[in-house]
């Protein structure tokens, strides 16, 4: 009996030492491709830094003005189109010029103030002001019209008060709603917080699918897989080291980008527990590397790997909820989101990093990731074993 146990103990330690050796081999192989290494480092540092610098708000939308009135009132209205949202492009003389500016993209809005604007206002009439908005980019078009609407609404309100001889002070004796906004988790709506985290998650996703898949297919393409197959290694011992080594690299990269980019450069408040975040990230990279292994079994060369990776990653990115809110997705796609591990990962990452939530609230996403992970990873392993046994 004792001998038997000693035997299994030996077997186990042999199993582990083989695993360790293979993991080291994978890491060495990665380390000897300087360009690949440089690419990975770039993705985790500079790329995230650059993405964090991208601003998503409407800034300095160019406004061209056709002012047919040239009065005090019209000038006051025009000067309300100010930065940060708007910037005055200048005055235009006729409609054609406005159309030309809009066509060429030099202006985004054309504000048209009718003649007798001030005269009609003093007379107590209602005056129409026209704004043409370039909505070829709907997001911007929407923001621009919404901000312009706000400016005109405020101006109109001020004019109404003025007409009735009321001042700002008398507002305190009037029935009205006062907006009090509080934005949680990102009070100043700093884009770089969202962008840098989102980019980091994208990088993790791309690498965790591509690296294991490439490591496996490269052996196939070069024929070195034959050497591995005649060695005493089991398919698990060939495959797990690829996943383990790449997960290690990715987690290291994540740590680097949090400590060197996210915190110092963008001051992202890491509100939750970092160890929980790394645990979740490890689970996530394991899950998606299952997808990578699946790709590896389907493809024969790296060109196929590259295209299959894109085919899987792109829908994942766009069904993740980072760019399109889940609640705005059409019905069927919304269900599809629940199948994407990235959806849970994004929910948890923003939860931990920005909202400071813990496992008590995020447990259902964690469960989702674990279930999907078991499913995807065992599917990948099953395919891989079937191919090589």
């Amino acid at each position, binding site marked *: 009996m004792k001998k038997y146990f000693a035997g299994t103990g030996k077997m186990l330690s042999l199993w582990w030492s083989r695993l360790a050796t293979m993991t080291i081999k994978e890491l060495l192989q990665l380390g000897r491709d300087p360009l690949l290494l440089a690419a990975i480092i770039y993705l985790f540092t500079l790329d995230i830094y650059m993405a964090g610098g991208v601003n998503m708000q409407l800034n300095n939308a160019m406004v061209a003005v056709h002012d047919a009135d040239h009065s005090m009132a019209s000038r006051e209205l025009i000067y309300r189109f100010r930065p940060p949202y708007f910037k005055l492009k200048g005055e235009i003389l006729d409609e054609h010029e406005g159309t030309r500016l809009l066509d060429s993209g030099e202006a985004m809005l054309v504000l048209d103030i009718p003649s007798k604007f001030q005269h009609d206002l003093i007379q107590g009439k209602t005056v129409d002001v026209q704004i043409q908005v370039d909505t070829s980019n*709907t997001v911007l078009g929407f923001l621009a019209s919404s901000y312009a609407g706000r400016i005109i609404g405020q101006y109109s309100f001020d004019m109404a008060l003025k007409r009735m001889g009321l001042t700002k002070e008398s507002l305190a004796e009037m029935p009205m709603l006062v907006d009090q906004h509080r934005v949680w988790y990102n009070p100043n709506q700093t884009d770089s917080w969202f962008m840098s985290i989102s980019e980091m998650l994208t990088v993790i996703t791309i690498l965790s699918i591509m690296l294991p898949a490439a490591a496996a297919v490269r052996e196939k393409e070069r024929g070195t897989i034959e050497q591995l197959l005649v060695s005493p290694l089991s398919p698990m011992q060939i495959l797990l080291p690829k996943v383990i080594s790449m997960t290690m690299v990715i987690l290291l990269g994540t740590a680097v980008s949090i400590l060197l980019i996210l915190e110092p450069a963008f001051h992202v408040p890491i509100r939750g527990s970092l160890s929980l975040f790394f645990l979740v990230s490890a689970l996530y990279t394991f899950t998606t590397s299952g997808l990578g292994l699946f790709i590896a079994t389907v493809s024969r060369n790296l060109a196929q790997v*590259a295209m299959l990776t894109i085919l899987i990653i792109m829908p994942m990115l766009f069904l993740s909820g980072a760019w399109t809110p889940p609640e705005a997705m059409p019905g069927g796609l919304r269900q599809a989101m629940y199948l994407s591990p990235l959806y849970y990962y994004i929910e948890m990452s923003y939860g931990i990093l920005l909202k400071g939530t813990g496992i008590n609230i995020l447990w259902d996403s964690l469960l989702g990731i674990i279930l999907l992970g078991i499913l995807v990873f065992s599917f990948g392993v099953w395919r891989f074993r079937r191919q090589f046994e």
Partner: protein
Amino acid sequence: MNMTRVRAVAGKECREILRDRLFLALAFLLPVSLMLVFCYGISLDVENIPFAALDYDQSSMSRDYLHRFIDSRYFDYKGSVRIERDLEPMLAHSDIRFAVIIPPKFQENLLAGRPVAVQSIIDGTFPFRTSTSKGYVIAINAEFNGELLAGYISRHLGVSQKQAAAMSQPVRLQLRYLYNQEMKSVWSIASAMMMFVLMVCPPFLTALGIVREKETGSIYNIYASTVTRGEFLIGKLAPYVGISVINILILWFMAASVFGAPFKGDPFFFFISSVIYVICTTGIGLLVSLIVRTQVAAMMLTTIVTIVPSMLYSGLLVPIASMDAESKFEAHLFPTMYYNEIALGSFLKGIGPDQLWGNALVLTLYAVVLWTLSYLLFHKRPKS
């Protein structure tokens, strides 16, 4: 330049593509599926924002005010809570993205002619959605205020409600949406997608081509043959440019018919610019292929130079105009921005070569530079 030799290299490459069934299928499947996923999947319209309400007043006026949110298609009512503390877990778990809090004595204060502060809590995780939600809230409040003001005027000056309403709003805004009157985001996405898909797919087709020959050693056949550098590069890439040109037509057809984006511009000009763009992006793949030594590195590098700029610096998600100087500079470095303007202009704006020739010229220059650089980097007598 010997055309027979170019044809021979191209023929060999074609046969290789045709025999790799999965690769061939992916070459056409990838663009189509990207187009489908994005156009059905990205809806940048912010709608159905889930929200909860906390009504301390429970009066008829507060209910009326609340119903403006509940009945709006922009909001999705998830229920009411009794105390503010209950809102926190809902926001943390993303069950709601926004909450409105109506203070006690809402009705009493308003009827007595006193201002009332209405609080809203908005989830700031996704800044773009936050500012849009804020916009909706402000619009609803402004409308309510307009009515309050009209009521106040009619009571104080003794005029009819209708007159008072006119008096409370002396300036009206007439908005005209140009180019995309119904604000259909799928139209702008469909045309922008042509830019994106044609940026991502051609480099991935070609990036591994030459480095694979290097890695497997079959490049020595070329080194030893009479084929010159230029002949080899042109012959090698011609089939991939061909595939991408077919993809242009497929994507164009999809954008126009499946997603109904109106094509108002000059079709000939658009086609020519698209071909130039594809030659550009194929050239990016070629350049990557020449710089790296291994296929894995080629994959990584292609991902870096294609996906990131086409998502971030093309104007697809982030407008060029609102970028800071640094990002703007980077946007001008990639061909995506120029082609995106051509695609949007041709599809939605209906403008032609007289306004877009500059962009087409930049693309041509880009292609020339890329191909010349590749020609200079490719040697038949490698150093090591």
